[in-house]
């Protein structure tokens, strides 16, 4: 019983069948996460306690608990209540895919919100003052000055978070989704060759993480054009 490299190669195309779901999960939950992050960021910097407190509570809960447990609460936990099964949300919560997107998005939103806040705090106060002195309104200052700079400052941390979300999609297999990990686990249950098949899955994830990393580094370099001395 040792490692069979041929089996790793053979199982790669089989496992890759789950790539579609993994990528879809990643795409939708990242989008959802960013949207949530922006909303909670605005709530937090609004200066109004009744907006800022719920945002902080949300961030606190989702950063303080394991993502697996969050998935279980949303997928298995919520239907414990009849009113949820009878509500108009049920068609959404009924689907494991959307449940996963919701859980992953809520989780990533909490982290991204903190990342963006770090970016906003990193914008030199002098720049907003210059905006004020030029007569720009507060929304104008946020949109044209603070936001673009904060986004650039947030990109390195965001690329880490993006890869975390990619890795977290692997937990979708625990709620019936046939993503890369789900397919791999099913294959294992048929072939009884966990070592080779999980290594093949890991290779697939690593390759995709690497591609994401390179893409985000490129984006970062593009967004940072203006920082470099070009003379």
């Amino acid at each position, binding site marked *: *019983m*040792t*490692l069979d490299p041929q089996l790793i190669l053979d199982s790669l195309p089989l496992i890759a069948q789950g790539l579609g779901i993994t990528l879809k999960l990643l795409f939708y939950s990242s989008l959802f996460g960013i949207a949530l992050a922006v909303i909670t960021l605005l709530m937090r910097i609004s200066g109004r306690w009744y907006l800022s407190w719920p945002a902080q509570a949300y961030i*606190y*809960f989702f*950063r*303080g*608990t*394991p*993502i*697996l*447990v*969050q998935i*279980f*609460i949303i997928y*298995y*936990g*919520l*239907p*414990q*209540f009849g009113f949820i099964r009878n509500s108009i949300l049920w068609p959404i919560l009924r689907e494991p895919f959307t449940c996963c997107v919701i859980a992953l998005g809520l989780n990533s939103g909490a982290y991204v919100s903190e990342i963006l806040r770090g970016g906003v705090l990193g914008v030199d106060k002098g720049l907003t003052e210059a905006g004020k002195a030029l007569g720009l309104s507060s929304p104008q200052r946020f949109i044209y000055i603070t936001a673009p700079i904060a986004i650039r400052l947030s990109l390195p941390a965001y690329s880490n978070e993006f*890869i975390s979300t*990619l*890795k*977290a*999609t*692997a*937990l979708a*297999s*625990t709620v019936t989704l046939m993503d890369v*990990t789900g397919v*791999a*686990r099913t294959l294992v249950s048929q072939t009884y060759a*966990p*070592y080779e098949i*999980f*290594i093949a*899955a*890991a290779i697939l*994830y*690593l390759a995709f*993480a*690497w591609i994401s*990393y390179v893409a985000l580094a490129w984006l970062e370099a593009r967004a940072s054009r203006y920082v470099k001395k070009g003379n």
Partner: protein
Amino acid sequence: MADLAAWGDDFLLGTLVVLKVFVVALIMAVIFGLIGAAARLSRNRIVSGLAKVYVVTFRGAPEIIILLIFYFGIAVSLTALVQYFDPATKFVDIPPFWAGSTAIGLIVGAYMTETFRGAFLGIDHGQVESAYALGLSKFQTFFHVRVPQMWRLALPNFGNHMLSIMKDTALISVIGLEEITFVAQMATSVTRQPFTMYMTVALIYLAITTLITFGVAALEKYANRHLRGAR
């Protein structure tokens, strides 16, 4: 709630398991992190290359896949290895506790590697030179000048890694260690109250992560005491 009460002692035992895994994984992560950082900073290309591969792999592959590879695979490899020396051996086994703790330790150790490396490089080289100029040996400089400053720089990230370890313990339920997420699964199969059970798990985690956060904040305050009242 009555159902929950019946499972109270199981949750308590599960919490103890979580804490045990946490402590063991933390110790391992620090060890792997220090070794990794030393290797990354090594002038030997092969050593630093290997360390880099370690970091990329364990940060890029999903935790659950690594855990499964460890649980199923390492025993197989170890057995083959040991049989090579001692053909009489039938099996070498790694119980889920050790497989899980080691996997988490290795995963978070990869993150710690980068943190420690950054902290090491973050110390102003002038500090080291002035220690040499005062006649301190390399060894004395390391322990009296570098380390005391290093841990202050590493601490904020280190706190985040501790939280990651804590939350990763939930994954061990997938390989059947009876920690709180697994207790909740067992309890759900009897009580049919998934929300109650998983929410309990979430709140236990939230309590522990809150404690860790406060602990790290206190440590940070202590480590930064020399910057208080700085001008």
